[in-house]
């Protein structure tokens, strides 16, 4: 299981990279109140996702400069060494076997906890069965996310030059799709040293576990239905999540939707925790994973954030930047508005956005003419509300 081991190493690197970003707040807001205080575990999970996003984005930028995947991996490894010290100092209380063992040992197990744990194990076992007895079989993972990753890894049938017939993969008609998963999987294969059918699928387990922890922990912190000997909100949320009939297929299928849902979920949670720069960063992660994120996730989140703004009665957008003093004698510092914080996070995707604009990449292979105009608005709204792949709109709004 070297693939799993390397995935864990990659996750650790991502956590180190992300940890230094998670605490950054260009809004310079006052300390959050106790009900807004983000959970430590949630913060670690957000750090992993941010790290994966930055790691692949850096790989993309350095690839454009002509570096190979192994050279880029070396650069990232060197980068993580000083950051690792910072991350370990920042979170030193959270290390050791205590962290791993304390949760299940200290937990006062209720029947509903046991049921949730059993279904979690059932899902993981069923995925393991799929890994061991089925090939990479769904069409999109084969065509978009698997083949392109393998071409990137081997550097055969792949070119960053627009004139090449192999521009962004030999099957040139699918060049429009973003590169988060192909780059992640190509990096994983580089670390493993060879390619096999597990590489384009095993990341599903990582995103599944992240989703489970995010959902459970967030439902727990936002709910008052705990410690009464009853199924908690976390248990019910997790059981509802496990009841998604196609979830085990997504985990082991190699599609991009699970990674996408992780970024979207994390972005919503960051916004709820008033970590708006992080919310923007993770929203950019959505767009970096699937093109749906570029239009539909952005729209969903905009609506959700306006709802948050109205409900809290706080100023959201204007002024974008202002000079403030926390006390009369302190230095003047610059603070971003909430909107500016989100935008600042989102703008980290600028290299990819410029690249896709320059090479006129479309939102979907069969919709090259799709662009913004007034007639497209009803189409976007219809897609947002009713298209089966974009059911997340309702989830985001709720």
């Amino acid at each position: 299981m070297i693939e799993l081991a390397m995935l864990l190493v990659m996750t650790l690197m991502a956590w180190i990279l992300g940890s230094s970003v998670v605490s950054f707040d260009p809004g310079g807001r006052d300390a959050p109140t106790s009900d807004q205080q983000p959970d430590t575990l949630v913060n670690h999970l957000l750090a992993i996702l941010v790290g994966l996003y930055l790691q692949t984005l850096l790989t993309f930028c350095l690839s454009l400069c002509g570096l190979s995947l192994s050279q880029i991996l070396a650069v990232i490894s060197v980068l993580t060494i000083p950051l690792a010290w910072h991350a370990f100092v920042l979170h030193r209380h959270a290390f050791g076997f205590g962290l791993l063992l304390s949760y299940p040992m200290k937990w006062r197990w209720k029947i509903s906890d046991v049921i949730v744990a059993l279904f979690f194990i059932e899902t993981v076992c069923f995925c393991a069965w799929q890994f061991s007895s089925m090939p990479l079989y769904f069409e999109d993972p084969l065509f978009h996310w698997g083949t392109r990753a393998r071409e990137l890894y081997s550097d055969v049938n792949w070119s960053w030059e627009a004139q090449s017939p192999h521009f962004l993969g030999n099957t040139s008609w699918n060049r429009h799709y973003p590169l988060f998963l192909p780059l992640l999987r190509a990096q994983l294969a580089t670390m493993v040293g060879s390619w096999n059918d597990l590489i384009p699928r095993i990341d599903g387990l990582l995103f599944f576990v992240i989703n489970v922890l995010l959902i459970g922990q967030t439902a727990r912190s936002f709910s008052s239905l705990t410690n009464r000997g009853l199924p908690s909100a976390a248990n019910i949320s997790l059981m509802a999540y496990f009841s998604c009939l196609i979830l085990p297929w997504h985990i082991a299928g190699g599609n991009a939707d699970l990674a996408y849902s992780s970024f979207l979920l994390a972005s919503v949670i960051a916004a709820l925790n008033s970590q708006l720069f992080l919310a923007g960063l993770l929203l950019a992660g959505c767009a970096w994973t699937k093109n749906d994120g570029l239009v539909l996730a952005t729209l969903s989140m905009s609506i959700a954030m306006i709802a948050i703004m109205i409900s809290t009665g706080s100023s959201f957008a204007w002024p974008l930047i202002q000079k403030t003093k926390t006390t009369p004698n302190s230095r003047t510092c610059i603070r971003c508005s909430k909107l500016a914080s989100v935008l600042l996070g989102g703008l980290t995707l600028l290299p990819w956005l410029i690249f896709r604009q320059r090479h006129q990449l479309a939102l979907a292979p069969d919709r090259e003419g799709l662009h913004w105009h007034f007639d497209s608005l009803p189409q976007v709204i219809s897609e947002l509300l009713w298209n089966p792949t974009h059911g997340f709109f309702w989830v985001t709004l709720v």
Partner: protein
Amino acid sequence: MLSYVLLVTNPNPAFAQQIPLIDARPQHIILQDVILHIDLPTKLTRPWLEQPFLQLIWIAADAHGQPQPTQQTQIQIHPGQSCYDLRSLDDWNGGLLAYQLFHPETATIVQTRFSPPTFSEELTLGLKPRDLNLKRINHASEPQYLLGLSWQWWACLPGILLLVTMRGMFQKPWNSSITASLMLALTIWNLRQGLDHLGLIQQQAAADHLMPLTQPYHDFSRLAETHLPANARWSHDPKLNLQARTPARYHLAEYPFSADIDQADYWVTTRDNPGFQTVLQHDGLKLQVRSPVSKGAP
């Protein structure tokens, strides 16, 4: 792959006559009121992921009054007698005028009928496993599924609440009843799903594999990967179907691909070609190498 076509037209008899259907039976059915029953003979079924699809096509008049397919969707058909809910297609304006289920390989017309659903059929539809096929894993969302459940399902909810938490309702706060009921309902739902998974694992143990139609393409591509020498330039027959082409492109991704067959040393095809030698053959697919004297592909 097997497929069936259900043509749905607007309720205009003159218009429907323009649509070529063999043995089409005229009907006046509003899709939003009925469910579809299909009795699929066992001999026509395929295992699991490769079950045939019912292709639903909504046909409307174009600017010149000619019938044109405007919307379509797929549902997976299960062996034996089964019912299918089409009521969620509420944006398919109009009714069903003529329909036919036709099995193209055996020229069999499959028995179908429409009827308003009974209560037990409503429950069956609600517990039915989700459609899953090789193409569209990401085309099914839970909110749509839940919103698409009939009023009978929603009507059951207060009953379930009452039954499950009768004791709790008198002794604990109201939210205890709700959480306990939700937990029980979700546990039943997940148990059902777990049983489906067990069933699949048993099927896998009983049969060689679950995908007799597409598995050979994967097996061939894996074998081809071991046969190709390093840096061998390859291509594939432009007429090769997508189901064979996609695994080949994935498994041979580390070998230089040439869109121009004349530039390739090897190619994947289903045909015999003069000037080429077959180096690998598996279940109808061939890996051929160019003979030294041959010039260009046929």
